[in-house]
């Protein structure tokens, strides 16, 4: 019988398993950082973490609070500039990035700029792109880890802050974004989504244990296809949970969030 786990722990494990050894990941604080740290301690010891403010391959003593705080380059091999990190992405040397947002659409486009009203008088002003648009434009594979609900998974964004597949097949290339880049997986508390190779629309890739397709569709504000055969997400192993709880996040900063 398997060890009990919470949704956050499952999401982190799902993300960690998708990070291949010897690759580079531009990560932020929280889940991405936890996922990368877990991957390093399991199947991907040579996974390299980069932080947008300039930290390269740090040995994190604890979860950073900010992508720019001193933890983000603790015992790093280099502490450099934001431009150096972003240009490493622009040269094509960064494989993964993790992003979030208040809204995501069927093509994996993200909104972190505003909700409601108009541009001059938004109902809610959000931070804006930060480095998200840059990382989503320049890294090879985009991961999104987020909670799954209809307010977040919408047919039409209030503002397209950060590029997913934009309007669909060929749209990124047409806009001038580097070929071969784009959204890869969306990991939520209900399921893992991938993108249809033809339509570039989000599709259910695997359902978390005990979750039905109907539940996922009910929590999604747009038509959601299915990748056949629809798999069930592997639950976290006791080993993953032990490392996550004892080594990666002993203070439960991230895994304690739900």
């Amino acid at each position, binding site marked *: 019988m398997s060890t009990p786990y919470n949704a956050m722990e499952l999401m982190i494990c799902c993300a960690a398993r998708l990070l291949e050894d010897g690759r580079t990941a531009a990560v932020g604080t929280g889940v991405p950082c936890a996922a990368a740290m877990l991957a390093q301690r399991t199947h991907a010891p040579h996974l390299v973490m980069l932080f947008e403010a300039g930290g390269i391959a740090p040995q994190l003593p604890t979860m950073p609070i900010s992508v720019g*705080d001193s933890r983000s380059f603790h015992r790093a091999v280099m502490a450099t500039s934001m431009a150096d990190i972003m240009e490493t992405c*622009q040269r094509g040397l960064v494989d993964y990035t993790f992003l979030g947002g208040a809204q995501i659409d069927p093509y994996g486009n993200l909104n972190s*700029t505003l909700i409601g009203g108009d541009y001059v008088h938004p109902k*809610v002003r959000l931070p804006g792109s930060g480095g998200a648009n840059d990382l989503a434009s*320049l890294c090879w594979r985009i991961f999104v880890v987020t909670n799954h609900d209809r307010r977040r998974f919408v047919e039409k964004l209030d503002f*397209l802050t950060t590029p997913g597949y934009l309007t669909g097949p060929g749209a*990124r290339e047409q806009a001038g974004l580097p070929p071969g880049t784009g959204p890869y997986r969306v990991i939520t508390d209900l399921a893992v989504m991938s993108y249809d190779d033809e339509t570039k629309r989000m599709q259910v890739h695997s359902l978390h244990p005990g979750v039905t397709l109907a539940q996922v569709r009910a929590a999604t504000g747009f038509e959601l296809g299915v990748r056949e055969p629809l798999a069930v997400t592997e639950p976290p192993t006791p080993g993953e949970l032990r490392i996550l709880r004892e080594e990666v996040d002993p203070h439960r900063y991230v895994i304690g969030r739900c």
Partner: protein
Amino acid sequence: MNILSQGEGALFSDPSADRARQFFVEKPRALTDKVMTVTEAVHRFIHDDDYFASGGFGCARIPTAVLHEILRQGPKRLSFAGHTATHDFQILCAGNGLGRGPTLAAVDIAYIVGLEARGLSAHARRVMESGEVACTEWTNYTLAVRFKAAAMGVPFLPARSMLGTDTFRHSAARVVACPFTGEKVALLPALYPDVAAIHVHEADRYGNCRIRGTTVADLDLARAARRLIITCERLIPGDDIRQDPSRTVIPFFCVDAVCEVPFGSYPGNMPYEYFSDEDHLRQWLAAEKDVTTFGAFLETHIYGVGDFADYLQRCGGLSRLQELRRHEFLLHRGM
């Protein structure tokens, strides 16, 4: 150049390299003593209606003393580069919407109103949702590229970001095809701030600076700014600088004022010096929820405060700062 598409956003600063040269030709470049108080530096170098930019990364290595002094000196109606702006932006927003100021008139937005994982600033949201501050959208990298263009002395630089998004549509960038390869790029106009403030670890009296840890966009910002105020943890002898010139990252001729402000990034983090004061940042976020409470909070922590040392005293003084030093070095974790 043949423009394929163009953002609708406004430019809040002049990207002309020639007009910047006309300013820089007059800028003093002798090795002279520039040490002064923050009050004097802000009074002399930050003027009403200036375009202002601030160094560091939101809650890390920020020139807090300069930001507080801007509020204390009253209306500046600044344009501001909202680049990785968290607590720094939160401070400037306190000068709007509360019967003083306005401190902010326009913002080039890459990241504002948030404090990363700490949450959103209620007051910064009020200010930015009011419509009283003009906005143009960018990203952390493209704003950094705009500083780099100015630092290089060219009117624009290309980048492969922002393409195809509403962020681009609300920016002032323009898309062209590379004449050598046909690859589409966004051209970013140079951003020469009228004045910038950067907090560093060590500087000599002439303004030669050392920074430890990530430099974010500060090396380009220092060169892009028409006027530059440096606050430093420690003034060091000029001879120390000459002993190891490889460690200098900002040369004196970029600098107009050097202010020694120990713990000058508080409540932000200063790498290798002290960690951020998360309790104090939580108090800010909490106080902002109610306008009256926030007004009183600002009176206690900024307007009614003599100088930055006084502010540090009110926030727990040396014993609190000692704790934050222990946190920075993880001594509280037994390291």
